[in-house]
């Protein structure tokens, strides 16, 4: 079967590509830089003997080139799932961000992801089964003065996936949403994180192992469920004094 991995050339997306290719699945990798996605595709094809195709796609753009993705999928085994690991943030993501930067963050983390799901959903439902995996962030647990647009987009994405799961409850298309804590990728590199970053490879292995299950929303690493539970209950007079 074939999986479409969005953001498949680095970080969690690359780890997912490794794990799914290792299991013998064909892949289509979407990333913004052809040099990266072609390198990952060549590597996976050489090491695991699977078919991997790379598509350059800028998720921050207003329109998506579905034709290029469809072309890449043609000739491969049937599409089994979408692993939507793309994400981007900026160090200046604070209230007052420029329109251009705000649009880019919102599209990469929410809008383009939803549009890709919308486009391929008929294919999955027509096939009778499939997998849709979205990735949120613990940054969206509660609004704060940093990662403003990013957190809002991730929270919107979480809501979208909840709706998606509700809409597909009677079908055999599984909808999963992982709320991620810090991962040891370049998104967290150079940041002081209150808890240690987790391995993207282990996260990818978890996604692979749970691909057949109806897990809905889950946290990775699991201890973030407790952290988020507590954080959401911190009274405002205390929360407003917190800096993280």
């Amino acid at each position, binding site marked *: 079967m074939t999986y479409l991995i969005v953001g498949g050339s680095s970080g969690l997306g690359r780890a997912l590509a490794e794990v799914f290719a290792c299991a013998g699945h064909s892949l289509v990798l979407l990333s913004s830089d052809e040099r990266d996605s072609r390198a990952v595709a060549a590597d996976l094809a050489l090491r695991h003997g699977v078919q991997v195709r790379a598509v350059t796609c800028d998720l921050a753009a207003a329109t998506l080139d579905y034709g290029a993705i469809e072309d890449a999928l043609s000739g491969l085994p049937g599409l089994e799932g979408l692993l939507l690991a793309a994400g981007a943030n900026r160090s200046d993501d604070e209230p007052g961000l420029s329109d251009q930067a705000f649009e880019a963050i919102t599209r990469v983390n929410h809008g383009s992801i939803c549009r890709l799901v919308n486009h391929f959903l008929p294919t999955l439902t027509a096939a009778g089964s499939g997998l849709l995996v979205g990735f949120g962030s613990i940054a969206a647990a509660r609004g704060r003065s940093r990662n403003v647009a990013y957190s809002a987009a991730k929270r919107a994405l979480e809501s979208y996936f909840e709706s998606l799961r509700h809409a597909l409850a009677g079908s055999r298309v599984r909808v999963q949403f992982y709320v991620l804590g810090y991962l040891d990728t370049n998104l967290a590199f*150079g940041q002081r994180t209150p808890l240690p970053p987790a391995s993207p490879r282990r996260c990818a292995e978890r996604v692979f192992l749970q691909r057949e299950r109806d897990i809905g929303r889950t946290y990775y690493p699991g201890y973030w469920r407790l952290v988020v539970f507590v954080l959401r209950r911190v009274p405002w007079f205390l929360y407003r004094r917190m800096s993280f």
Partner: protein
Amino acid sequence: MNKSRGQLPLLQTTRFVSFDGLVTAATRHQRPDRYRHLDIDLGGAPRVARGGGYSYAAASFGSDVVVQEMVSFNRLLDYDGGVRVRAEAGTTLLQLMEFGRSRGLQVPVLPGYPLITLGGCIAADVHGKNPARDGTFCDWVEALTLYHPTRGFMTIDRASEPALLAATCGGFGMTGLIVDATLTMAALPGGHVQVEASAVTSFAEALRRVDDSSDHDFAYTWHDGCARERHFGRGVVFRGRWTDEPSTPVLPFKAMTAASRGRSPVALWNRWTVPAANAAFAIGSTWGAPKRRSAFDAAFPFARQTVYHRFFGRRGLAEVQVLVGRAELAGFLERLRELVQRTNALVTMISTKPFRGRQVSLSLSGSGVLIAIDLVRTPACHPFLEAFDALVIDTGAQPNVAKDSRLPQAVATRALPNYRAFRERICEFDPDRLYQSELSRRLAL
């Protein structure tokens, strides 16, 4: 931490340590995982590439030098179906070995640890178990992609850019960032190696036995560093031969890094433990029939046996490795015996193997016998190394820049045959000297 507005903080401050534990520096650290991170504008900041960080010398970091850690650039890019593989610089020897195993290929030159990267092997022009037969790593490099901010990405090979390629092979990253390389693999003769060990009482006997090992795939010697006077040179000769048994996958092992090597706050090698361990090692090695080892265990004996390096503790070890001409060998070993005796330095072991190298940068060049000496950092270590430097110059020996983290510039200038030419070449190629490290500064490159 460096945060520029609108850009991710892709730089952080990290403390690096050389594998031998002697040199440390806290400096800015970039961990690129996309091609656009390689050509990100770092201004005029000096920078240097880093692979696995297994160099004994501080070749991959330095104060106020941006360290570009290439471990995410570890992808295989192309394979011609024969013997040529193109891989990114952060690809480890283990990855190349695993890729080659299923295709009946092997990396022809394997230095001592599986997580050393392709870029590191080229930058230090490392050698393997049989350099006299196989040459050094760069003999097997056909082409590479080099990045320099003023010149962009360049594909270079022996035909198009012979001088630049020569300066990059064994050039310790001074010509730019090695992005990928095309390597010629060799046929894998078998899946396992039969290693026989025999006791010897002197260097002369050991080297005779090594020279008589043309029917073996490799031969090297180990000598008890605690042996003195007439026992000096006592040791074991190891000779290996491939067997035609099928190869087996590599079993997991726990990675040792420069930081984890030096985790123990105290050195556990001392004047009691070293002789006891050496005696046990000599007896254990020569006991019983020849031992059958997997290709991985034969190539990387320290991958699963990390105790030797970790026992040196945080203070670290001192290693020197020199190439000595055959004509000077007897005199060199006699003066080495006197030196060990006089300084009473705590030498853990001495090893030798025949060598041949032909690069024209900072790496070892010429033929002779390679002699490596490991020492515990005791007060006697410093006088020993000072006198050893004099011995190197007197006998025309060549020091291995990658192995000696304190090698003084004065010694390098006089002892490395290609030092001046290499320096001129990199100054011509990169007049601003953008690529720097503690090693390059110490050697005034």
